[in-house]
């Protein structure tokens, strides 16, 4: 009886060991590690020089620790046959990015081969970087990337990420109807100066006109004899009319709801990601 129990325990032990051993063997290439395997800046495409890299990484680390959300930047030469979304999601998952049990994080990927970019979000990052928020964000830094000002573009991305994380920490992430304000376009400065000049011309012109008071009279309205104006005939004759029509401009149906939040997808590892991308 006692021996049988021992056997049972041994069998269980062995099977547990096997299971524990087997699982990592099965998914050895595609596992999600517990620890982050790579730094928060991976410049495989070598777009930054050493000092830029160092500064940027410091910044990324600082922000990531502060808000307990990984903010990572990855540059690669090629997507290796994957779509930008797949590559970014997998890079995030299999290199163990993300902080905490939900692996909170955001990763910005650019690939030089076909000039793809992608921002993938995970965990609380999905709520922090909403679809609308991300669109608003990329509008402001992507142009630098397009112009090959990588260091500037990445820094801008980091600054914006911090702004978004800060806003999300307040419990009201940037989203539709709650977007941060962009700086004004450059042409508003000359436009404002133009407005100023016109206003000054009108107002100071009015002040100048006050100096001139000598002018001839128009008409003789002051001298119309009281009640002398009499109409003896007054007819309004309708002659004809014509109708013209112009086509109404077609209202573009704004398809797709703008409910806010983030649309999500499931990556190859089975985890849920938010994000969006495109070409730069």
């Amino acid at each position, binding site marked *: 009886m006692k021996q049988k129990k021992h056997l049972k325990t041994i069998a269980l032990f062995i099977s547990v060991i096997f299971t524990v051993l087997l699982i990592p063997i099965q998914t050895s290439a595609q596992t999600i590690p517990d620890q982050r395997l790579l730094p928060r800046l991976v410049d495989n495409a070598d777009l930054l020089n050493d000092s830029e890299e160092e500064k940027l990484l410091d910044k990324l680390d600082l922000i990531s620790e502060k808000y307990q959300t990984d903010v990572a930047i990855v540059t690669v030469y090629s997507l290796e046959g994957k779509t930008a979304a797949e590559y970014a999601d997998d890079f995030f998952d299999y290199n163990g990015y993300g902080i905490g049990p939900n692996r909170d994080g955001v990763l910005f990927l650019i690939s030089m081969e076909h000039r793809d970019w992608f921002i993938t979000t995970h965990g609380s990052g999905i709520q922090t970087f909403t679809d609308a928020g991300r669109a608003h964000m990329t509008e402001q830094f992507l142009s630098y990337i397009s112009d090959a000002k990588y260091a500037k573009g990445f820094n801008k991305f980091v600054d914006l990420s911090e702004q978004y994380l800060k806003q999300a920490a307040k419990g009201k992430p940037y989203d539709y109807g709650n977007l941060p304000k962009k700086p004004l376009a450059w042409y508003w400065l000359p436009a404002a100066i133009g407005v100023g000049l016109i206003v000054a011309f009108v107002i100071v012109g009015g002040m100048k006109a006050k100096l001139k008071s000598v002018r001839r009279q128009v008409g003789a309205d002051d001298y119309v004899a009281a009640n002398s104006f009499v109409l*003896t005939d007054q007819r309004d004759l309708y002659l004809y009319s014509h109708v013209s029509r112009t086509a109404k401009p077609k209202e573009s149906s704004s398809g797709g709801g703008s409910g806010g939040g983030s649309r999500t997808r499931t990556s190859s590892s089975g985890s849920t990601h938010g994000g969006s991308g495109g070409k730069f």
Partner: protein
Amino acid sequence: MAQLLDFKCPSCGGAINFDSQAQKMKCPYCDTEFEMDAVLQHEEAIQSESAKDDFTWNVQADNNWQEDELNNFAAYVCQSCGGQIVGDFTTAATSCPYCDNPVVIAGNISGDMRPDYIIPFKLTKEQAKQGLREHMKGKRLLPKQFKDENHIDKIRGMYVPFWLFDTKADANFRYKATKTSTWSDSNYVYTKTSYYSILRSGNIAFSSVPVDASSQMPDDLMESIEPYNVAELTNFHAGFLAGYLADRYDVPADECIERANHRVRQSTENQFRSTVTGYSTVATENSNIQLSDGKANYVLYPVWVLNTSWQGEQFTFAMNGQTGRFIGDLPLDRKAYWKWFGLVALIAAALAYAAAWLFLR
């Protein structure tokens, strides 16, 4: 030698003036006031005492006048001090440069030259000075030195000759007018334009349209101080001129009538046009204005004329001697202009940029 009228105080013998505040003749020496009629009758009595001399004077005056007219000026002998007074041939009233007594040149206010009516001065020289101070108030681009120096070279109370035209206008107007309305269905916006022919006939009367009858007074200056209240027109009396300057007209009525016609036409058109309402566009297609019952009166209107020069430029101001309406162009301080321009432009640009920052991001 032309005949001069001067009004002697029946009380003390000093030369008396018309006083604009009392609206009476007043002796500046003994402060006695006289009714206009009393002075007139008193003057007539004196005239009739020396009727013989006066008649010969008048005849001679006219002859002399004709000669002097060729030279565009006339010389008179002051009846108070015997000094020679040189005046323009249009001068009707002035003062003796030696004894400062007011004199009225009878030849220029009698016969054809006699004004039908006059509006006597109601405002004093002091009020004219005050008027200039008020006029310069609130004008930020006026050079500060001009305001501070405030030197007036000359202030003259002048009776300026005007022709007053009365007329009746019969007018027919035809306008082409349109009305538009728009509506729309799901595909199109429709605009309907209706055309109308508008007929208006009627008449309107104008009374006392003034035209400056003095070639020396700028017409625009005189039109600027309009209007005068014609209810206060009184029959002309030479006494009103005492103490002021006066010109007789030198632009005859038929030359002035053109300006009156122009103004009457403009007002008639405006009046008829204002009866066409409710249309989106109105264009005059045909107009026909006929004037009738035209009449011209010769009057004297009171004007305070102030002259000053500044930086080599002459500035003339005029104040309506009845209503106090003050006009006259003032010099511009260029530095102040650009200072204000820069300041206003800066503030407006900053506000515009701030507004864009707030609402257009």
